[in-house]
């Protein structure tokens, strides 16, 4: 197995799926000759040619609208929107069409497309380059919203997303792109969309995170074990919608304490839905109110202050200790 960054792992998924199925088409701004601004699509145009890797004009709505037409015809477009902060231009195409064509046509037309886009802060980027707006997409019926947390699951989930019969928004944490390497098997690997994973077993409290927030959450769980003797169970959501609540509800019943972590603004964020599910399904097992460590309800500040905005190990540990203090 090769040790890969998330960028390399995503590239492997694209490469293997394009080899397997000539209906898989990559399109977007700068994805061809340039290989994408983060190099996720690096070298694909050389291997597959300009009919499989389309360098498009600068037109986010058009790229997604065109992808919808391609998907209706039976292709499997994987379009890239260069930064999630530019995906509001195509929000309308996803909301009004990609997520609904199956429903509107009573199953006749499907839109098996993937929209890949880098999201989140932590890379000292410009304004409009650091948002975490997964709740927008998770609120849309008919759409799936997937967020990997590392190279190996990014590769497996992207492979599954490309093969999924429904449209998938695939959020890639740009803070993770080159943050670390992980062994990624050369042979095909998939992960079911709509399932979360337990990444650390524990009995004292449940920590729920996803995407770029998983690493500080795992690090916080290790600190809690070392310094406080607390064994936290850590759950990686992987798919925000449809939300798999089975693991975190079971975990909450076991530990009685839940802390959830996301970098999206707090109000109406995915955490709010998780709290609602816990109240509905595990209320009598909860020993304390569910706590949240999230981004604040502000525009994510410019990079000199973004570390104060983003949940970090310290905040997670402090909140966890507060949650467990009697």
């Amino acid at each position: 197995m090769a040790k890969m960054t998330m960028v390399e792992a995503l590239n492997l998924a694209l490469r293997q799926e394009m080899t397997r199925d000539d209906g898989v088409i990559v399109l977007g701004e700068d994805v061809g000759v340039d290989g994408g601004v983060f190099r996720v699509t690096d070298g694909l145009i050389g291997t597959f040619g300009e009919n499989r890797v389309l360098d498009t004009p600068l037109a986010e709505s058009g790229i997604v609208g065109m992808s919808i037409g391609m998907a209706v015809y039976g292709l499997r477009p994987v379009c890239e929107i260069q930064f999630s902060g530019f995906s509001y231009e195509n929000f309308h195409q996803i909301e009004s069409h990609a997520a609904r064509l199956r429903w509107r046509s009573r199953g006749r037309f499907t839109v098996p497309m993937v929209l890949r886009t880098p999201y989140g802060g932590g890379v000292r980027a410009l304004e409009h380059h650091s948002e975490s707006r997964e709740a927008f997409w998770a609120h849309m019926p008919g759409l799936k919203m997937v967020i990997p947390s590392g190279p190996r699951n990014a590769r497996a989930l992207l492979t599954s997303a490309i093969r999924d019969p429904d449209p998938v928004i695939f959020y890639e944490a740009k803070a993770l792109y080159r943050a670390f390497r992980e062994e990624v098997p050369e042979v095909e690997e998939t992960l079911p969309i709509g399932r979360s994973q337990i990444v650390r077993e524990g009995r004292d409290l449940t920590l729920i995170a996803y995407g770029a927030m998983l690493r500080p959450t795992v690090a916080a769980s290790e600190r809690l074990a070392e310094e406080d003797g607390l064994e936290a169970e850590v759950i990686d959501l992987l798919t925000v919608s449809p939300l798999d609540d089975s693991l975190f509800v079971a975990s909450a019943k076991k530990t009685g304490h839940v802390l959830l972590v996301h970098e999206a603004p707090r109000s109406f964020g995915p955490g709010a839905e998780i709290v609602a599910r816990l109240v509905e399904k595990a209320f009598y097992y909860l020993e304390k109110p569910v706590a949240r460590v999230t981004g604040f309800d502000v525009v994510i500040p410019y990079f000199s202050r973004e570390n104060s905005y983003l949940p970090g190990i310290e905040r997670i540990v402090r909140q966890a200790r507060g949650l467990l203090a009697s």
Partner: protein
Amino acid sequence: MPRKPISLPHPIEYLSILDENGTLDGDLEPLIEPADLLKLHRAMLLGRRFDERMLSLQRQGRIGTFAPIAGQEAAQLGAVAALRDSDWMVPSFRESAAEIWRGKPLENFIIFFGGFNEGGQIASESNDLPLCVPVGSQVPHAVGLAWAMKYRGSDQVAMTFFGDGATSEGDFHEGLNLAAVFQAPVIFVCQNNQWAISIPRANQTRSATLAQKAIAYGMPGIQVDGNDILAVYAAASEAVARARAGDGPTLIECVTYRLSVHTTADDPKRYRSDDDVAVWKKRDPIARFQRYLTDKGVLTPEKIEALEAEIQAEIQAAVTRAEEQMAQMDDPLEMFDHVYAEMTPDLQAQQAELARELAAARKEDSHG
């Protein structure tokens, strides 16, 4: 280094073959077999009469809001008549005559506008997208379809419809630009019916024509008399042939008029006078085509009368079938179908929740 005019590859022409008096320009007359002419005439008449019946059903409260087509039959049918069944049509929300031509059953319109999703069912053999409400947003879909056809080596083409208002939308411009850049086999049909709800064509754009917007994207554009089915058919046939031959997209502006309301929720008396409408009533595309066909000897007043009766019977049968079907569509649980390929656990739970509520309500009713 003088200033000099830049020569552009595509001039903008206006095409009219059959004027409003039914006078024919014989040099430009397209070759259409008499049987096909009669088929087109029947489709125009059916489109008009069905529209009238739908309006009356809406006014009686038997269906909900819909967008009438009266006046635009030639623009729609002249365009789709240039397609093969295997080609793709991407409609807007005012193309019922074109949709009927392409095989959509009349009762599906009534069921759809009667408020039941089942009416949106697209038959497995149909290559038509469902109607699209957000203005202009369907334009890039046609480009993606067309690109996919080209990629797969098919000689199919895609045709999409939109109104004059849509030419102000970003998706119109992005769609045309993408189509030209990728030389996608797509035909953009603008039904310039002069009104985007209350905004007249003159307040929509300062462009002298909508067709000239094609020049900006590097594709041919043509303006045709949209109430002249022969002109629309000729322009569409040229565009289809060009697309099929691999020569890329075309923009066709059909100059026509919306004789009726924008939708049944609209009151055009607030923004236009009856006199304006009267001018366009004289340019009615059906009357004009009937004069042409009568002059040509392929149609007689007696045949028209018989056809009117036949069409009314066809419409009545569809209304009856639709109302019978709607009476059976009492299961709201259907709303959960077709959201995803496989129903998610959450949706299964929500569907079960509604089923329980409905069962409880029925129980209360039966005891009440």
